[in-house]
């Protein structure tokens, strides 16, 4: 550690340690979330889920990952090779970059940028680009349809998402994530902004492409949507990115609404992770409760309900702040 501080400087050393930590977190988180999803879905359907490999199937996902690594990377004949190869990498980059500014506790943060929330929202939009790349380069009708739907979905959820986050930023007066968490020391914003919380959760579900808004993948209609032609570790990268994206969206929910690292007795990191996994459980709960919306239904829902409510919420927030 001292050697690294001497050669790289404090900021550099934090970056290296943070990068290694984030890589480890991404892998462990994905393994855990896949297991958790299988368990949650199983218990909601009155069955036990994976039970064979390890304690209650705990290392089933590792076995699956080893199987995926052993599989052949199939590249179909007439795909657009460079883009086909690049798409799984591009989907992973913004996901990894977003960890840069997430405050796990008051001190556990790689880089406390003063545009943190904007950075995360900007990078998370890049995932749509990668989905479009994957769908278009695959030269497959189902993949293209999935990609088109993904772009249309992006138009639907991105606007209410940004407006909702805006009302929180108005209250704090800062884009810095640590400032937003610090402002919730006494009262979590979920109590002051319940409508914004609900809107954010809905938009986050759409952003992570999860049911009821999993229309880009829509396994019963489009085979597997945009990643139809991907196999082996390339498919695993899409999968990994999806679950990591879920972690990031839930982490933002925890930071904006659930008071981040604040909580009694336990250390801040533990509280933060508890809140994150609570929001993730909420998303899994949605997935196994609601049927998939049709693609025009989502757009109607977003433009007729989410955006007006988000605007009303923003206006009322601004009004209250001005009059106070």
């Amino acid at each position, binding site marked *: 550690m001292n050697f690294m501080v001497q050669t790289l400087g404090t900021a550099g050393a934090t970056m290296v340690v943070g990068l290694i930590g984030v890589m480890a977190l991404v892998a462990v988180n994905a393994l855990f979330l896949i297991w958790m999803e299988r368990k949650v879905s199983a218990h909601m359907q*009155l*069955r*036990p889920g994976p039970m064979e490999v390890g304690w209650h199937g705990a290392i089933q996902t590792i076995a699956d990952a080893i199987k995926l690594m052993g599989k052949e990377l199939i590249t179909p004949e007439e795909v657009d090779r460079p883009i086909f190869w690049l798409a799984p990498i591009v989907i992973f980059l913004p996901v990894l970059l977003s960890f840069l500014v997430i405050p796990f506790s008051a001190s556990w943060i790689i880089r406390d940028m003063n545009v943190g929330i904007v950075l995360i929202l900007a990078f998370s939009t890049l995932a749509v680009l990668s989905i479009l790349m994957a769908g278009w380069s695959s030269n497959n009708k189902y993949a293209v349809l999935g990609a088109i739907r993904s772009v249309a979905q992006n138009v639907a959820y991105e606007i209410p998402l940004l407006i909702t986050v805006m009302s929180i930023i108005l209250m704090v007066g800062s884009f810095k994530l640590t400032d937003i968490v610090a402002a919730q020391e006494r009262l979590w914003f979920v109590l002051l902004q319940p409508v914004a919380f609900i809107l954010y959760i809905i938009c986050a579900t759409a952003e992570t492409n999860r049911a009821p808004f999993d229309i880009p993948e829509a396994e019963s209609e489009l085979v597997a949507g945009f990643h139809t032609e991907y196999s082996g570790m390339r498919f695993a990268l899409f999968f990994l990115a999806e679950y990591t994206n879920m972690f990031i969206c839930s982490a933002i929910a925890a930071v904006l609404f659930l008071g981040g690292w604040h909580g009694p007795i336990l250390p801040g990191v533990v509280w933060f992770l508890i809140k994150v996994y609570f929001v993730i459980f909420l998303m899994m709960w949605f997935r196994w*409760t609601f049927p998939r919306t049709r693609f025009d239904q989502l757009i109607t829902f977003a433009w007729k309900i989410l955006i007006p409510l988000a605007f009303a919420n923003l206006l009322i927030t601004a009004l209250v702040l001005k009059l106070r």
Partner: protein
Amino acid sequence: MIDYFKEVLGGFYSLLAGMAVTIRYFVKPIVTVQYPRQKIEMSPRYRGYPQLIIDPETHVHRCIACDMCARICPSQLITVEGTKFPGEKQKRATKYIHEHQYCSLCGLCTEVCPTDALEYSKEYRLAGFRREDAVIDHLVLLQQRQYAVGLPVTPIPTEAEIAAAMAEEAAAKEAKAKAAEKAKAKEAPAEEVKK
């Protein structure tokens, strides 16, 4: 405007109602079993293939090889052979083959049996690698079941034993026929005398 908010709130309520249902199921105990390790008891009405009943008193089967089941079987899947062994009053099955691969489980064989020797088994693991795996030799199956519950295993008569029993029976029959003839011959002159 009021309608709009009514719709939004009504929709939101319906979502919450749906989530309440799933969370209730989430905390309910699971109903499935881990199949190869755990098995569930089949209901008393379950109809597996017909099998020979182990008599609760004698601990052997009650089949008298009357051939009724073989005759009533609509697909003619049952082959029964039996012999009368010396010292026994009734015939006893020496071979009972059921070609279960064509069986429609109609249950006529269990109903027609005069000694109530057949019952439905509770067996549901019927998969096999060859068609011949579905052919059930009921006397062997009976032995396996007796062994499983710790009863003395009924031996299956060998061909030699069957042949010996048949020869003995034929001899006995012949002797009986001769005796009857003699008796007849004796009676005949007596009748003539009466006239």
